């Protein structure tokens, strides 16, 4: 009753608004909002110097550097190869195309722990791929990068693919008629159209990589200052009963995640406008 009277902008003959929204809000509060607020409230009980000490000690800063650096590099690699994969899947025909298309979502479906042990095994020095490489991958920061590439694969492909499908052939024909080469058509006509989606995919992959834990800890080696990611540090602190320290780092990560979420929403709105305008 109360909800429909205060929130509804237009009267509707459909039933169930109060019940549906009421339940949704209650459930959202209990499962997500109240527990999340616990993290922020917990840090308010810390003094500022204690908070600062917890989030800026050298070991923590080293973990930020690794988490951000590896996530950024992995998202970048995925942006490039994701675009190629999306392009190939949309434009060309080749054997097993549908199977391959379906398998692109594997990182969404495969549990991270499974991915972690599999990647560790094949990129280890005696592994299927590791033995051919002149440098160590598993148990180094490079291993973190490999795991983050794996979990980020679907994001760019799946955001770029539908946009690429919608690019009208007339535009490309017009470009060709005007004498543009294929490369010029791509860089000056197609790329500007898919750019918002590409950036969205990049940001999604980056955000996901920042928080990733399961696939990374097996392959990373987890050496403090060298190959220790920030989420692992949170767990380490928890296991040492340093709950405030763990929470302080978690709050820093949360604020960054929310900022990224905001950025992604803005990018998506831009993408939608860009697409609608064509």
């Amino acid at each position, binding site marked *: 009753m109360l909800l429909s009277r*205060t*929130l509804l902008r237009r009267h*509707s*003959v*459909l*039933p*169930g*608004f109060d*019940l*549906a*929204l009421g339940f*949704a809000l209650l*459930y*959202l509060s209990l499962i*997500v909002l109240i*527990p*999340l607020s616990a*993290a922020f409230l917990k840090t308010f009980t810390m003094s500022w110097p204690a908070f600062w000490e917890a989030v800026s000690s050298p070991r923590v800063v080293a973990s930020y550097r690794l988490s951000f650096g590896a996530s950024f590099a992995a998202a970048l690699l995925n942006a490039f190869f994701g675009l190629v*994969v999306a*392009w*190939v*899947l949309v434009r060309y025909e*080749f054997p097993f195309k549908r199977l*391959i298309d379906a*398998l*692109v*979502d*594997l*990182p969404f*479906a*495969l*549990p*991270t722990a499974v991915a972690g*042990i*599999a990647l560790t*095994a094949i990129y280890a020095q005696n592994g*299927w791929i590791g033995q051919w490489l002149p440098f160590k991958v598993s148990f180094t920061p490079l291993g973190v990068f490999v795991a983050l*590439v794996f979990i980020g694969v679907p994001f760019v492909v799946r955001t770029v693919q539908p946009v690429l499908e919608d690019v009208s052939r007339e535009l*490309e024909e017009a470009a*060709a008629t*005007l*004498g*543009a080469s294929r490369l*010029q*058509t791509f860089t*000056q006509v197609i790329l500007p159209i898919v750019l918002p989606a590409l950036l969205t995919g990049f940001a999604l992959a980056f955000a996901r990589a920042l*928080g*990733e*834990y399961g696939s990374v800890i*097996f392959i990373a080696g987890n050496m403090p200052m060298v190959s220790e990611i920030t*989420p692992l540090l*949170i*767990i380490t602190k*928890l296991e040492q009963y340093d*709950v405030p320290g*763990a929470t302080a780092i*978690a709050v820093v990560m949360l604020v960054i*995640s929310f900022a990224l*979420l905001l950025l992604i*929403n803005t990018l998506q709105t831009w993408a939608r406008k860009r697409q609608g305008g064509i």
Partner: protein
Amino acid sequence: MNTLAVPAAKLPQAGAAPRALRPATGEAPWVRAALIVTALVFLTLFLFVPLAAVFVEAFKKGWGVYWAAITEPDARSAIALTLLAAGISVPLNLVFGISAAWAIAKFDFRGKNLLLTLIDLPFSVSPVIAGLIYVLVFGLQGWLGPWLQTHDLKVIFAVPGIVLATVFITFPFVARELIPLMQAQGQEQEEAARVLGATGWQMFRRVTLPNVKWALLYGVILCNARAMGEFGAVSVVSGHIRGQTNTMPLHIEILYNEYQFAAAFAVASLLALLALVTLGLKYIVEQRVKHQRRGAGDRAE
């Protein structure tokens, strides 16, 4: 900005033109081949080889070891706990998804965009932090910790904590699949049902549900896959008690850290199989949803 005028010198020369009968909007065959090979090499190195490795490693020591690894008591209890956690969290998030989608897609109300953003929130939170926040609420030093202890209830390092963490991680899946479809379908059909005298329940069961059943199934499949495979969040709240609070992914971790690689990969292969089934179902359902969306689009026109 997009001036496509090209200097005359760069135009293809008339005499050399028809190298092949490829259309002006296609690439040269070698470019095409190079791109396909690039894409396939990338996917092979990062997706296909790891997937194959799971199964090869699982059977490296033969069927006997494989079978023993997935039927020993600890593995069985891990499988049971994983099924339990998914069995509770998927229906809960299903009910939430339907409620949220009904309110968001069929009504126009203040704060709708905020609600949409909040529903997506769990996707942007690291699984480790998802576990941590429940420790802060239910843990010994947490808000409800002392109360729980005096009543001899355990949430953290026990099954309820594992279920809660799983619910959090899989929170948005069903809602996200339903909302765009139901928004596209509009509310005319439901309104017609109401005008014709259907009760709210009849309208929901005979009009709304059949319209969204494939998207619903799709959301449930994704939700279930994530629920069964969740590692980070569950790892924080589980306490890793063998035979009691170990889910399948945690069991894999323990086996792996004990260098029982074949056993670890054997249990992992079950989850990999689940992932493949999920992708297969997803593919089938996706085709249906596409078909249905097209139908909804046609009606709207």
